[in-house]
């Protein structure tokens, strides 16, 4: 970031450097969000598309208890996904950050590697693992632990597991990046001075990793909230999320304005969340 108040040329240079980012944001964030805003107050065309007159009915329609329930449900599922990712991601990142340089590289590559496979294929793998006649249930039955299959697939829990698996690297990488910068002498000194492992974790590693944790949380929460494929595949269509509402209104009901209303609600939730994240992150940085 170029700080304002520099000389005139450096300020011009700053804008030049920022322009690709600004153009990108204008084209792919500002314009789409604004067109959603416009679209949400228009009337649905007969075959999709939008026509006049302008009206605000969609916002009252969106407060129907069915839809409110879906939105709350989505927030819960996305939160559970982000928390589960944090619980798995933080220890993993901490472990990796304490290894030798060579092993760090190997393990980070190993974490990114599954991304080379199409995500649908990876999601189907969970279908094979979790279904009632699947590998896990068959194994448990064969060793005599259960006689009826455990219903794992087509539940909200399966959706959370599937999305955690998909987005876990997005949690590990920012936390690792934060921890990797931490001076190893800090924890060593803490141990030398008689601090317990838990205390050094609580007073050194977690606070210093906090910016990474917050970013990871956002990185996992945001795509989880908008996801509609995983609820369909692993949730068996029985778990509906806000992403499914947007998709269904655009493609099935051909009601673009109502779909735009949900997309806007989704965007608003994210704006609030990211504001909180940047506020907390700033305070953490000041304290540190």
């Amino acid at each position, binding site marked *: 970031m170029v700080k*304002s108040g520099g000389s005139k040329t450096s300020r011009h240079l700053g*804008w030049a450097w920022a322009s690709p980012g*600004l153009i990108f944001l*204008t084209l792919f964030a*500002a*314009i789409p969000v*604004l*067109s959603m805003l*416009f*679209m949400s107050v*228009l009337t*649905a*065309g*007969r*075959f*999709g*598309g*939008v*026509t006049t007159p302008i009206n605000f009915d969609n916002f009252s329609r969106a407060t129907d208890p*069915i*839809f409110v*329930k*879906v939105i709350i*449900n989505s927030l819960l599922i996305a939160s559970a996904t982000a928390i589960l990712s944090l619980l798995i991601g933080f220890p993993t990142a901490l472990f990796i950050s304490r290894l030798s340089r060579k092993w760090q590289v190997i393990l980070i590559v190993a974490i990114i590697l599954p991304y080379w496979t199409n995500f649908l294929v990876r999601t189907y793998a969970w279908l094979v693992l979790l*279904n*009632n*006649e699947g590998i896990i249930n068959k194994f448990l039955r064969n060793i005599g632990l259960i006689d009826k299959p455990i*219903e794992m697939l*087509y539940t909200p829990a399966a959706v959370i597991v599937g999305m955690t698996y998909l987005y876990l690297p997005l949690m590990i990488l920012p936390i690792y990046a934060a921890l990797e910068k931490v001076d190893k002498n800090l924890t060593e000194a803490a141990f030398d001075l008689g601090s317990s492992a838990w205390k050094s974790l609580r007073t050194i590693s977690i606070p210093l990793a906090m910016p990474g944790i917050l970013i990871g949380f956002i990185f996992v929460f945001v795509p989880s909230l908008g996801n509609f494929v995983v609820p*369909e595949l692993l949730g*068996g*269509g*029985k778990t*509906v999320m806000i992403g499914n*509402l947007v998709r*269904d*209104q*655009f*493609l*099935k*009901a*051909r*009601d*673009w304005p*109502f779909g735009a209303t949900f997309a806007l609600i989704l965007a608003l939730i994210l704006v609030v969340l990211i504001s909180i994240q940047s506020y907390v992150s700033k305070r953490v940085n000041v304290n540190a």
Partner: protein
Amino acid sequence: MATVRKFKFSATVVAAAALLLSACGGSSDSASSASVDTNVDITTQKLVISNWAGYYPEDLAAKVKEAIGVDITITNHANNEEIMGKLTASDDSGIDIAFVSGQYAQALAAGGKIVNFDKAAIPNLANLYPEVADLAYDKGTNYSAPYAWGTTGICYRSDLVDFTPDSWNDLLNPKDSIKGKTTMLATERWLALPAMKLLGYSMNTTNADEIAKAKEQLVKTKPTLLAYDDTAYYTKLVSGEAVLSESWDGWCNYGIAENPAIKFVIPKEGSDLWADTMVILSSSKNKEAAHAFINYILQADVHAWVANNILYKVPNKAATETLDPALATSYPNMGLTPAELLKGEVVLDLGTDSKLYTDLATSVTSS
């Protein structure tokens, strides 16, 4: 800083407004008629065709090239909603021929997105069953050439179900022995169909009371289901995860091909009659080749070859008569007669009332 920000904002507004205007872009209100110029050399035209994945013989493009000399590119869509999205998002989708279900052809025609055929260029329309001309989504077969047709019923594992299903009630209020092992279609019109038929309503109803009653039944059914599934249910039947599924007849055949214990039944309360059709887009610049393509598909031996390949019934009398009777022995629903099929209710486009069904599906699946 402030001035720059203000400028950025107004530029965005202008761009957004421009985008919106283009989305509003006008379209006429009914199908225009195509007139085929017989002097055009169709081998100079190229066709882009969008069909469901796996719903045509793999070597179709090569056969077409060989037979009528037209280069075709086949793109795939997963469902009607996806292709409708592509066709309505802009005035020219770049697609010449689309495969869509009858009620969607009806909607596209009403929106002026597809052309009325120049029937002189498709003489093979005469091969179709005469009943086809009465199908309510396109009386007279003016803008949609039927490619396959069928009905919706119950596909089940006769070896894993301890009774012979014959009613939508077996799906909607399942016996304890099959609870948690049944699936229903997820597409809203078919999600609603079993309840509508069980309650004795039309599957095209827009009556609020009837829809509310159907919703009540479907909400009651939801906890007994394994999943809502349009695409992979036959694999669930094959693995035994599911034992009874609401199913399009052709999809059940894919299960039967892998396990002969899988059977198909049309419930006694009745069902639907759906047709998948070929339509020519108004935006197509290759209408002569497009007509020739449709005529080629409707040719008796070609349409029979398609039926053998995709295991769906084709509404082509001449083609069906050449089909190997053994096919109907292995796949009993391939032997359904037009009279039996026509007992089903034709699925119609509901226009702006479509959202009644989307809301119904959302409130059921999120209950």
